[in-house]
């Protein structure tokens, strides 16, 4: 299945040396079904991330007692330690059911979307990034 890259804002005041007002990123929509109603969430496909991490509030909406999950300390480029709490989560990608062990963190307020990383996403999908076509192709890995 194919998804379009999405354009997110870039604040030109923060980056006066760069003329760009937006940035094209491999961000897709994932779909949750909950007792409070269905909703979707935007997530970045990030090959540099070891795990999948979503905002803590998403976990709460899914009914998890977020901080009761298995704790992981992870690091971004600043090296600052952040905490995530892992739970088994189900969601759909393009209508296909997907189950993964997902971390939820309350320390990613500066990030507009969740992260799909190696464990829980890249191990289950083959991904072709076509930046020039603004297209992302996903194929489910079928384990025989």
């Amino acid at each position, binding site marked *: 299945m194919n998804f*379009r*890259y*999405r*354009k*997110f*804002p*870039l*604040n030109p005041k*923060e*980056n006066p040396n*760069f003329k760009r*007002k*937006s*940035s094209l990123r491999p961000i897709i*929509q994932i*779909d949750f079904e909950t007792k*409070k*109603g*269905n*909703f*979707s*969430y*935007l997530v*970045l496909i*990030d090959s*540099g*991330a070891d795990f999948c991490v979503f*905002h803590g*509030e*998403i976990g*709460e*909406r899914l009914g998890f007692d977020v901080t009761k999950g298995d704790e992981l300390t992870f690091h*971004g*480029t600043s090296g600052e330690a952040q905490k995530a709490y892992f739970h088994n989560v189900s969601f759909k990608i393009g209508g296909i059911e997907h189950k993964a062990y997902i971390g939820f963190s309350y320390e990613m*307020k*500066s*990030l*507009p*979307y969740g*992260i799909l990383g190696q464990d829980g996403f890249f191990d289950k999908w083959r991904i072709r990034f076509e930046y020039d076509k*603004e297209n992302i192709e996903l194929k489910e890995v079928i384990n025989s």
Partner: protein
Amino acid sequence: MKARLNDLSSKLQKYSDEWVVLSPNDLKVVASGKNFNNVMDKAIEKGISNPIVTRAPKNYGAYIL
């Protein structure tokens, strides 16, 4: 000119440090605010089914993850 649906740059630019909920059909902003559950409930009250949620950071910058 019709805006492209995958282009969220102008729609999200004015939001800062809050949750933003988009309509699934046209990606228009239907609710925003600091409290996640309040924002989601506000969108549902407006009759939006399957809303799409994202977070506006304090300042939209460049990312190197």
